[in-house]
């Protein structure tokens, strides 16, 4: 089945059994905090979750999820120590589905202004501190305002609230920056809160902590992966 144009019943967030083989989502564990909620949320929407602490766990997975909160430099160090940096790049370069949540989105950019870390370099741009924010960290529920339609937000009201916990956000650059921006959020200045580009999906908020709408969004990710709608984008340059 496909999620395109499909409005999920409210508040139905449980999957109907028998929709076919459960998709396996490998959730990368690099010591960056709470994996219980992402595991539970993906399971709730019908995915089969495996926790990936080394590259061997990527084998047979249908999608890769990189969660995480905190700073980029220690996260990159822990990914490197686990031998995960190149396998993640190769996964993305191979056009396989990737979902980055919070830090897992920020790590896709070239680098972070927070600690000068060089990150995965899959998306052009840098992770920068939120501008003109009345409070930092930006903690709490805020509106995710869509700038273009994407099945990621199927069945979710416009400007729905999602839960944020961060002080930095990725700033996409280059010719594809606008086209890959799916949603923006304001806390002081506005920032990019959701991106989608070929096989890459990324959200700055925490769908696993955003109640029914968060579960809907994760269910949409499962549908997108299942539909095979994710295409390889040759313009995504993964540095060697």
């Amino acid at each position, binding site marked *: 089945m496909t999620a395109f144009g499909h409005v999920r019943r409210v508040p139905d967030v449980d999957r109907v059994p028998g929709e076919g083989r459960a998709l396996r989502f490998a959730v990368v564990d690099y010591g960056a905090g*709470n994996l219980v909620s992402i595991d*539970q949320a993906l399971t709730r929407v019908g995915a089969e979750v495996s926790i990936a602490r080394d590259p061997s766990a990527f084998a047979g997975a249908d999608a890769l999820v990189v969660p995480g909160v*905190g700073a980029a430099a220690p996260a990159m160090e822990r990914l490197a120590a686990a031998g995960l940096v190149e396998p993640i790049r190769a996964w993305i370069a191979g056009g396989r589905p990737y979902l980055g949540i919070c830090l897992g989105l920020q790590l896709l950019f070239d680098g972070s202004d927070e600690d000068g870390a060089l990150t995965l370099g899959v998306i052009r741009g840098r992770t920068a501190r939120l501008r003109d924010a009345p409070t930092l960290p930006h903690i*709490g*529920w805020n509106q995710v305002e869509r700038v273009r339609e994407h099945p990621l937000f199927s069945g979710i009201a416009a400007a729905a609230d999602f839960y944020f*916990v961060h002080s930095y956000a990725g700033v996409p650059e280059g010719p594809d920056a606008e086209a890959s921006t799916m949603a923006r959020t304001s806390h002081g200045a506005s920032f990019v809160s959701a991106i989608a580009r070929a096989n890459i999906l990324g959200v700055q908020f*925490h769908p696993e902590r955003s*109640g029914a709408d968060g579960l809907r969004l994760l269910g949409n990710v499962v549908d997108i992966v299942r539909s095979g709608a994710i295409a390889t984008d040759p313009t995504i340059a993964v540095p060697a």
Partner: protein
Amino acid sequence: MLRRRVIPCLDVANGRVVKGTRFVDLVDEGDPPELAERYALEGADELVFLDISAAPEGRGTLLDIVERTARRAFIPLTVGGGVRSVDDMRDVLRAGADKVSLNTAAVADPDLIGACASRFGRQAVVVAIDARRRPAADDWEVVIKGGRESTKLDAVRWAQRVVELGAGELLVTSIDRDGTRSGFDIGLLRAISERVEVPVIASGGAAGPADFVAAVRDGGADAVLAASIFHRRIHSIAAVKQAMADAGLPVRLVPEAAA
């Protein structure tokens, strides 16, 4: 626009939610994950578990209920009480908490704040400040151990210091007002919120929806925490949020909970 949060607080002892004056006259109120799920459905924006287990053997039970809660309530969970080291914090986060609240341990060892923040990010470190008014000096003093022990620290200066050390959020409780249902200490909240960049959670003294409005509008709080008025069903989360919305404050209204 960033919503002002309403946060029910659950006191947990040996795996059960209890009510009563902290540590005495405890009455069993039920299973923490069950109550947490109920509050989440009723529109709670976050949950705080305060572990008041006196015995060390309560810790394993706590981690178990944190995990069971994280698997039922898809909203953020902060756990406080008894976290004294980076390893303690790691265990609580691994069990499914999103944030940890440090109180007495931060006073005893302020470097713990920075150690936890650099390991897990400052957004995961809440410092709880219990403050008591000193009328003679016209200020507030930090107290610990549920208000039974004085520290002589000035609460406002302590708030600024813990933020410099790495706190990502402050949970400010007026010990004078806690449990009295006489309203939040607005002066305390304002004195702190005007001087720090991080979000301030107001606690201690909630009696009704008007107090939540005042804590945000007059006290500058980003979030408001309460226990007994929700547990005893004196006011619903939806009613509190509606009053905040009516006062022009941005809140997340949950359609299913509006009834």
